């Protein structure tokens, strides 16, 4: 069979003969393949000429094409073609496309923005992106916060007020929540009484006698809780002192605690240890005024505002 094949075939040899009779068949590559290969070689040379290619020491061949872009300082620069400049150019174009909207944001009042269907759509989409980039690490993606660490922005309890202006103020200047440590000032019994009183304000099961004593203590100069939380325990928004009479808990993780005793224990912990961790950074200077305005409206919409 194979002999027959050899006899019948007419494939050419390369023409060389080694050791007298060793010959090599010449089976060239298909023509289309060879030309495709040549085409890739030509393409490579053209590519090297146009785009950056060979490194030379610390420098490189830049290629004949160049790219003009505006850098972060606003200077127009021309450089041999590179993808970083291309990215900058793309970002500038995207910023230019957004500019009319941000200009509109700057020129409109909060109320006007919130009432305009088109601007409202812009706030919902751009605000979501800004929030995810800057706020979500603490306040979580949906703004629901983390009990014990970061306030929930979707409820109707605003520590510093939920109007456009107070939200804007919070964003611009940041906030710092503080509550003194009472563990060394008051006795354990007094702290327990205060905790029972605070629990009673929110309808949590408590010891009525302790709560009554705690109520007196709350408004006394000994504990002096009323200075910040006000005598009706509804808090003071000007200093961010929380309302103790509602169902919203930020520092004492009451919702997660088991049983009334556990909930009171959680409250006791906050009273005795105090707080010095409620830090919200200032965003003025980090974000543009228009971006902060967008976030203000977005956050206002998250919790329904006040």
């Amino acid at each position, binding site marked *: 069979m194979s002999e027959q094949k050899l006899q019948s075939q*007419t494939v050419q040899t390369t023409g060389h003969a080694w050791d007298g009779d060793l010959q090599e068949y010449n089976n060239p590559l*298909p023509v289309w393949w060879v030309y495709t290969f040549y085409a890739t070689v030509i393409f490579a040379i053209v590519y090297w000429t146009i785009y950056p290619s060979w490194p030379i020491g610390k420098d490189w061949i830049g290629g004949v094409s160049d790219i003009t872009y505006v850098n972060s300082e606003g200077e127009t620069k021309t450089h041999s073609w590179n993808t970083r400049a291309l990215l900058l150019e793309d970002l500038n174009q995207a910023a230019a496309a957004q500019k009319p909207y941000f200009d509109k944001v700057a020129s409109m009042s909060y109320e006007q923005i919130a*009432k305009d269907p088109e601007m409202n759509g812009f706030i919902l*989409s751009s605000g979501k992106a800004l929030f995810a980039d800057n706020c979500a690490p603490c306040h979580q993606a949906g703004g629901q916060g983390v009990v014990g660490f970061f306030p929930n922005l979707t409820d109707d309890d605003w520590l510093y007020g939920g109007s456009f202006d107070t939200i804007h103020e919070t964003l611009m200047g940041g906030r710092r929540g503080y509550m003194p440590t009472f563990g060394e000032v008051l006795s354990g019994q007094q702290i327990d009484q205060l905790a029972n009183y605070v629990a009673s304000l929110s309808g949590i099961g408590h010891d009525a006698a302790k709560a009554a004593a705690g109520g007196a203590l709350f408004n006394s100069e000994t504990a002096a809780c009323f200075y910040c939380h006000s005598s009706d325990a509804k808090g003071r928004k000007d200093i961010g002192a929380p309302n103790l009479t509602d*169902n919203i808990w930020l520092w004492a993780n009451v919702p997660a605690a088991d049983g009334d005793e556990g909930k009171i224990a959680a409250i006791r912990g906050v009273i005795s240890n105090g707080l010095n961790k409620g830090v919200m950074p200032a965003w003025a200077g980090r974000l543009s005024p228009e971006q902060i305005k967008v976030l203000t409206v977005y956050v206002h919409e998250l919790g*329904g505002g006040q």
Partner: protein
Amino acid sequence: MQTGLEDQLGLYQKRIPIFTRSVKGKFRRFKTSVLVLAYAIFFLLPWLPWSRLDAPAQAVLFDLPGRRFLIFGLTVYPQDVVWLALLLFIAAILLFFVTGLVGRAFCGYFCFQTLWTDFYIWIEHLIQGERPARVRLYRQPWDREKVLKVGGTHALWLLASFWTGVTFAAYFAYAPQLVLDFFTGQAAAAAYITIGILTVSTYAAAGLMREQICTYVCPYGRFQSVMYEAETLAVHYDARRGEAAHGRASARAGQRTLAERHEKGLGDCVDCGLCVQVCPVGIDIRDGLQYKCISCGLCIDACNTIMDSFNFPRGLIRYDSEKNLASPTPTAPKVQWKRLKTIGYGVALILMSAYLVYSIGTRGSFDRAVNQIRQPLYVVLSNGDIRNRYQIRITNKAGQDQVYVISAHGIPADALDLGNFSEIAVKPGHSGLVQASVRLSPTLAAQTHQFELVITPQGKPAEARSETVRFDSPGRRQ
């Protein structure tokens, strides 16, 4: 038969040029009618005006930047992609259905490769003359006549290809403006690229490659064989009649009439070769059913012409089924649809077409998407109330501005808070976004698992659509 190595030296077969002879007959007339109709629709449709408020006055316009297809009075949005799926399904089933019944009718009469090739052969015929003249021209050296005629043919082909490309692009942009822009260099790069690619590919496919597209490129041409059954009608040569006992023979003296031929045991085929000369794919139908045959029926016309001239009965080459041809008692060929496969395809075709018509006929004037906000699913408010939030997107599919009113069923009226947008105006083709929040007391929240949000176009209560949404509250898992 196994081919020897000597036959395999060339990897690709060199194209054998095909010079088709023109022919007259009912299949030729049918093919010409389909060609004229299809060309009239394809080339004229983009120029048909259609008055619109918010879009160019073009009856059929695929507005890609606007993310919509404008088809006469219908505006199709990306959300309607199911229609495209249905349409493709119907087209596929129709193809299978028809192929099972009458073979490659699509290939032979309707495929754009066939139509354009037919048209290009017509141009070739117009300039270079009938088949013998074309063969002579092909063989003669490159003199003035050949350069002029062949050059003229290719020039006309290129012109036809170019206008095919322009027409295709005109479905995607306002046609008069596109043509103006194209020639003044103002058109979009996509238009130049599309028209360029289509010019080259049409010229190559219909002018140069022709039957090679059907033979080597087209997948449908190759998988159609699985749709054939013994009952399927296809273009067949009646070998029993044509070859008889001693085969075909030319109509020389002494074997010119049927009686003389039958006496000598000769078949009815006079071996004139006309069926081969008219074949656009260059096959001999007398070799039997073969994959290259596009079932265009021109050989039937050719054979019938010859049969008529000899006063022989027609139908030596005809539409018939393999089963009937092989049967000892052949009957008149007829479409045989009483088969499970054909009926199945037919039912699927009717069901899907009905569903498509129903779906288009009952489409609402707007599209809505109501999503519950899941981060967080619910919020406990300061007085213990539970709040859920929802994002409502309304897309206006009607042709004019529309105000939509949002209301709720199954919860107290004051529980629904739409912020500033209890009604929202949306421009045609645009979307409006509304954040709704629903606030229920703990007792009510415990009872409410879901409720309905109703979106009503203002002034058109009949078009109101409602959407059932969940209401989540703490301590409940659904």
